[in-house]
């Protein structure tokens, strides 16, 4: 080996590990910001310790979960209604999302159509389902219908976007061939587009059913019916032992939903039907499906139709409210106009800053807590099945309980304010962040890891130099994505007293100052749009 080349003055020689000063400065500034923001939202050690004391008392009141007969009846009623809400919202939402998603695909549709469809999708996605639910409660009254409508909006936003992306990513070659054969547009769709996107579509729909089940617990908090309503009532009555029963039930239901959707994906996704050819009297006869395949499909659609029919039949919808809805909606928006801009400097500005702090602090805290859990889950790091399972349980449990429900709990522990909000955001985000981190770790190539181990590196070095460089892009992407989501969530936490824009929203609604409600909605809209632009820019830069 020869000595490294040294240029004339030595100063030009490339260093193996050049210091990245902008990055270091950025890191220092970020830490400084976190400390400053923590001060603003009043995260102090004393409060935390005091909160722990409260938390112990609170937990004491929650245990043992209340399993009294009348409570279980209430629980069953609420869960059933939530299930119905989720089924109807998923069914109707997915059906409506199909044409919207198709229209948004830029490789099939003319530009003006895609712009319209994309606008609709963006509108559906901008507002948190809770805010949409609030508006629907005002328009069609309390109860399941408002919840269903809110979740339909959320479903359209989510599914249509993913369908559009799936269509844009499919191969255009077969489409070209079908066009060249003179196929009309719809035939191109059913024979060329559908077979290519169906597997992914089934995946989305299954995920959405489970997500709607989780969210149906949420819309109930603001009057949208279902188990959320039961939960909120229990909170207001300080029935904390019943609260625990409900939360356990929600976690179990969401877990069951996840297992079901995983099953559905496996049945429907992988193998496209192949059918069979039988010899008939006048030559071969083609059957699109074998008897077994036909049976499976019939069973699947039968169950889906029965579930939808049962839900529509039994759910309580007051028709008078429905007829009245358009008029009420117009009236609602009329009362919001003109927007009360004067409300901004008085309250909203402060609340806005608090929301942003909550989202950022919650995300930072979530990453700190999720990293060890992700390490526990990753099978190429923790070889113990017990550790894996425990990690996975933590992920599912934190994710199953929605941020707003966590906020209710933390408000009871820490008192109203942004601290409860930060904790709620952080704890709920563990599941999401940890899941994706664990997957990224498991996807890391074993080669470099083996090389480091072979060189006798201790496990800390293996983590730092073997795994971290491979996981880093995914880590940054997940953190940014979660922050984006957390900004939206932080904006509504105030509805249950956990600080931020939601407090201003609740105050304005309580006072029936609809012009102020309008202002808060506009501010939330602006924040969401700006956040999306910021994360998109950062993502392009960092990753």
């Amino acid at each position, binding site marked *: 080996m020869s000595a490294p080349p040294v240029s004339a003055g030595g100063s030009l020689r490339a260093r193996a590990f050049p210091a990245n000063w902008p990055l270091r400065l950025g890191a220092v500034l970020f830490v400084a910001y976190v400390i400053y923001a923590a001060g603003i939202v009043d995260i102090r050690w004393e409060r935390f310790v005091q909160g722990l004391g409260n938390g112990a008392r609170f937990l004491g009141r929650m245990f043992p979960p209340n399993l009294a007969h009348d409570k279980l009846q209430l629980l069953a009623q609420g869960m059933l209604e939530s299930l119905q809400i989720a089924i109807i919202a998923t069914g109707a939402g997915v059906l409506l999302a199909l044409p919207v998603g198709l229209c948004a695909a830029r490789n099939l549709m003319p530009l003006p159509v895609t712009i319209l469809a994309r606008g609709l999708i963006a509108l559906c996605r901008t507002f948190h389902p809770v805010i949409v639910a609030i508006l629907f409660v005002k328009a069609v009254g309390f109860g399941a219908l408002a919840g269903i409508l809110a979740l339909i909006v959320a479903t359209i936003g989510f599914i249509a976007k993913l369908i559009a992306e799936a269509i844009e990513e499919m191969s255009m070659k077969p489409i070209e061939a079908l066009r060249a054969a003179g196929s009309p547009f719809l035939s191109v769709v059913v024979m060329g587009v559908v077979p290519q996107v169906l597997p992914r579509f089934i995946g989305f729909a299954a995920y959405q059913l489970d997500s709607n089940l989780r969210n149906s617990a949420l819309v109930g908090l603001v009057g949208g019916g279902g188990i959320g309503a039961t939960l909120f009532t229990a909170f207001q009555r300080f029935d904390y032992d019943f609260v625990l029963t409900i939360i356990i039930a929600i976690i179990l239901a969401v877990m069951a939903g996840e297992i079901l959707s995983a099953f559905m994906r496996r049945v429907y996704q992988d193998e496209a039907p*192949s059918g069979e050819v039988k010899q008939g009297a006048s030559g071969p006869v083609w059957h699109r499906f074998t008897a077994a395949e036909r049976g499976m499909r019939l069973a699947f659609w039968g169950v889906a139709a029965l579930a939808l029919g049962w839900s529509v039949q039994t759910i309580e919808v007051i028709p008078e409210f429905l007829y009245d809805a358009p008029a009420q909606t117009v009236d609602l928006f009329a009362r919001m106009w003109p927007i009360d801009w004067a409300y901004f400097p008085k309250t909203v500005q402060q609340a806005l800053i608090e929301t942003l702090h909550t989202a950022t602090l919650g995300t930072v805290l979530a990453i700190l807590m999720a990293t060890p859990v992700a390490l526990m889950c990753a099978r190429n790091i923790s070889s113990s099945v017990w550790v894996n399972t425990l990690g996975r349980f933590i992920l599912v449990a934190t994710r199953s309980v929605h941020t707003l429900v966590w906020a209710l709990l933390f408000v009871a522990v820490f008192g109203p304010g942004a601290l409860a909000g930060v904790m709620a955001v952080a704890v709920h985000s563990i599941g999401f962040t940890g899941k994706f981190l664990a997957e990224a770790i498991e996807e890391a190539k074993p080669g470099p890891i083996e090389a480091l181990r072979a060189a006798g590196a201790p496990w800390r070095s293996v983590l730092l130099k073997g795994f971290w460089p491979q996981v880093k892009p995914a880590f940054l992407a997940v953190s940014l994505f979660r922050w984006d989501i957390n900004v939206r969530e932080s904006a509504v936490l105030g509805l249950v007293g956990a600080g931020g824009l939601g407090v201003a929203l609740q105050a304005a609604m309580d006072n029936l100052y609809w012009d102020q409600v309008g202002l808060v909605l506009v501010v939330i809209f602006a924040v969401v749009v700006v956040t999306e632009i910021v994360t998109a820019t950062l993502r392009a830069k960092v990753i």
Partner: protein
Amino acid sequence: MSALPVAEAPGHGRALVIRNLVKEYRKGQPVLRDISLSVSEPGIVAIIGPSGTGKSTLIRCINRLVDPTSGSIMLGGTDLAKLQGEPLRAARRRLGMVFQEYNLVERLTVIENVLCGRLGYVPVWRAWTRRFPEEDIAHAFALLESVGLGDFATRRADQLSGGQRQRVGIARAVMQEPDLILADEPTSSLDPKTSVEIMELLAKVGRERNIPVLVNIHNVALARRYALRMIGMSKGLVVYDGPPAGLQDSHLAEIYGGEGWME
């Protein structure tokens, strides 16, 4: 391989007459500069020429996967260059197309892919429910038999080899009962032996159905072997049009430029 099913009434206006065809993707940079040619005789007509000279563009202008800038493309009395919407779709049914990368719907079965050739004829509900007319299905089975894939009807297209996929692609094109088949580099993704088999099949289709098969092809030797007529293109112009026997080294030098590559 058994004989291909023959179209019932061949012989109606199958002449393809291209006049002064120009295509510019970017203004002032024509890819096709004033192409005029006519094709009416059955059998393989091979178009040769270097990459980027507009062979694919020419083929794609004919069935309007690419819109020509100016000129006319007459087929049996209609100007394909001027068609839009429903009349264009009706005209496309008469032009079968075979692609370099087969362009099958990977997740559909072989028989479904072949039946895709009927999409221009059947209403969308039949496509959706796969209730194609009996005679179409019988025809599809006969075609699969004739391209040597009789036992593959319910295989998914993504389980086939390249040569098998191209056979499905050809069956799909023939399924349209076309007056003309366009083949855009049908052998470029295949090994030499399979390439020969595919050219053989295309020649057979042209012969038995009595229709012209316009083939873009890079392999000059293969083209010479199967074509009844060869069209040499260079820089967006036709520089040779005649029988394979008349194609001299001097022509090839003009078409491809230089001579070193001719061994």
